[in-house]
């Protein structure tokens, strides 16, 4: 789950990590109030979960509260990279001497957190790793041990920070590391960690992605997620125990198992089809969950063909068939539905479909089913 900049900064601030003074608002009146309290120049930052906000006009600096109000009004009626701006963060604009990069993430292969720093702050770290890889230093942290003093020394040496900022840097990094652990972080990025003209280190921008698997133990984060997703299809899907990712194509997919769902999308592409979604109904799905999944797919106006691919282990093909029939009886559609059922109770599943009034095309293999579904999307 991605957190907004203001949410991440809220967490950092609670952990005594220096962030610019500021507050978030959803109205231009709120913006004026905040600007008045802050005084001086104000940085106005659209709160959208995409990178490159600055280049897309999502970050502005204004001189007074009137400009702040106008800027926020404009932002709130606009979209950044297709995402509508609902909240804006206003902060004291600071005079910056240097910008550094500081990030903490997980190295999957080693199974260890890794601290990444670079002198190239304020730019995309992926770009830096292509253009100036020698400026990037990584330090792997053993969970039983934490960040050692020699590791701090290595990092500081590579950053050439003034010596009177050394202790400050060490404290900020230690606290960031603690936040990373405490909040089940997948990525915690401070970019830039700025050295102000007055000689202080400040987290000028901060971004955190938290592990979805850890959300159950962070009620605060869970409520942030609820706000974000409330009416979307993804939320409904999640509630029903379905993994769902919307895509650009026209063939709706319903599969049991993440790897099989990805493979199903891949095979569709081989036949010239484009998946409209990734959808994993999970193991042992009962008819109700299958019906929810089908409604999700049927609710997408771009869908011109549907492919259901089930290889049942604990999932029973008769349960899937019942769910499909229910969904199609409730919401009859002219969209062609191709179904492949294999594994547990496949004969019973076929029987249920054949004896129902709904029209689906049964296919014996994933390969055949994908071919049929792709052709059906073309003909539609």
């Amino acid at each position: 789950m991605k957190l907004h900049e203001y949410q991440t900064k809220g967490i950092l601030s609670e952990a005594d990590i220096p962030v610019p003074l500021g507050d978030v608002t959803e109205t231009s009146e709120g913006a004026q109030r905040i600007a008045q309290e802050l005084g001086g120049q104000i940085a106005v930052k659209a709160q959208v979960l995409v990178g490159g906000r600055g280049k897309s006009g999502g970050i502005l600096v204004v001189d007074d509260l009137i400009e702040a109000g106008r800027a926020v009004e404009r932002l709130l009626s606009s979209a950044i990279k297709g995402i509508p701006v609902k909240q804006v963060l206003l902060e004291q604009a600071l005079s910056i001497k240097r910008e550094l990069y500081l990030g903490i993430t997980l190295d999957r292969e080693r199974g260890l957190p890794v601290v990444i720093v670079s002198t190239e702050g304020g730019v995309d770290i992926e770009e830096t790793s292509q253009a100036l890889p020698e400026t990037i230093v990584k330090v792997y942290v053993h969970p039983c041990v934490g960040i050692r003093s020699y590791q701090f020394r290595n990092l500081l040496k590579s950053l050439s920070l003034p010596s009177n900022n050394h202790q400050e840097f060490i404290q900020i990094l230690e606290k960031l590391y603690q936040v990373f652990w405490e909040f089940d972080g997948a990525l915690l990025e401070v970019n830039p960690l700025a050295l102000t003209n007055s000689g202080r280190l400040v987290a000028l921008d901060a971004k955190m992605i938290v592990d979805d698997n850890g959300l159950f133990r962070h009620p605060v984060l869970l409520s942030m997620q609820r706000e974000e997703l409330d009416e979307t299809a993804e939320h409904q899907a999640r509630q029903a125990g379905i993994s769902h990712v919307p895509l650009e194509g026209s063939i709706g997919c319903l599969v049991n198992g993440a790897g099989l769902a990805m493979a199903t999308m891949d095979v569709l592409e081989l036949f010239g089809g484009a998946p409209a979604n990734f959808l994993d109904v999970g193991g042992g799905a009962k008819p109700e969950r299958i019906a929810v999944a089908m409604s999700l797919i049927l609710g997408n106006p771009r869908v011109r063909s549907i492919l259901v691919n089930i290889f049942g282990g604990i999932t029973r093909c008769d349960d899937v068939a019942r769910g499909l029939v229910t969904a199609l009886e409730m919401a009859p559609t002219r969209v062609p539905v191709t179904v492949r059922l294999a594994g547990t109770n496949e004969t019973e599943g076929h029987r249920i479909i054949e004896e129902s009034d709904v029209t689906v095309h049964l296919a014996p293999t994933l390969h055949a089913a994908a071919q049929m579904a792709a052709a059906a999307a073309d003909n539609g």
Partner: protein
Amino acid sequence: MAILIDKNTRVLVQGITGREGEFHAAKMLSYGTKIVGGVTPGKGGQRACDGRVPVFDSVAEALASTEANTSVIYVPARFAVDAIFEASDAGISLVVCITEGIPVLDMVRTRAFLEMQGTQLIGPNSPGLISPGLCSVGIIPGNIARPGSVGIVSRSGTLTYEVIYGLTQRGSGQSTCVGIGGDPVIGMGFVDILRLFQEDPGTSHIVLIGEIGGTGEQHAAKFIREFVDKPVTGFVAGRTAPHGKRMGHAGAIVEGASGLAVEKIKMLQSCGVRMAQYPDQIADLVVGA
């Protein structure tokens, strides 16, 4: 022949009195797996699976009364890590964790602990493993597999079943099928299993099934080039997956070029692995090899 599990495997089922544990324990028993005990704290003294399996309060107690060497975990995510630690601490040498949804940072600590203890872990978020005709530990359906000499190592669940079934239908039985799981930080990885298949006289052909995310397939490719002289056939799912989105599995997310399916496919191919374009092609490639 087989790797990791065979007819000498004696299994404890952690979480045996829960819905998943009970259901799958019964399936394993009917497959012929030797389940010697179950563990559910607070339910020690009961019997599970129609009275066939004694239940204990702890793994240590179970080990005092049985000769278990393997444990399989069907415990909800918030308690699963504790179950893994407990099994390892008590001296179980192979722990198989089926549970999905374990926080990744918990697994970081768990993996470090298990390395210190020398405990082998399969999973988490794994369907388990099966040595057809000998033993099944997990949820892989027994009826799709047949004994033979193809070793399978996979990050997926049902996609693995698809491949097992395809091979069985073509008369290519399997030595052992191992689901290493779909999470970002896991116990035994591709390289660990490939090493075992290379050393196993009963495995003559290896199938590797990967997904987007991480660099496990790339490490596997290098290992294959250096150390594996048996033919390897592979498939990587997720060519059509977008960047930055979790595709079901916690580990199936492209977060940099190395996570892309096309990068993994290229690397595996360059190291001598025959890559299938679609799952049904794997059996063709294995049989034709």
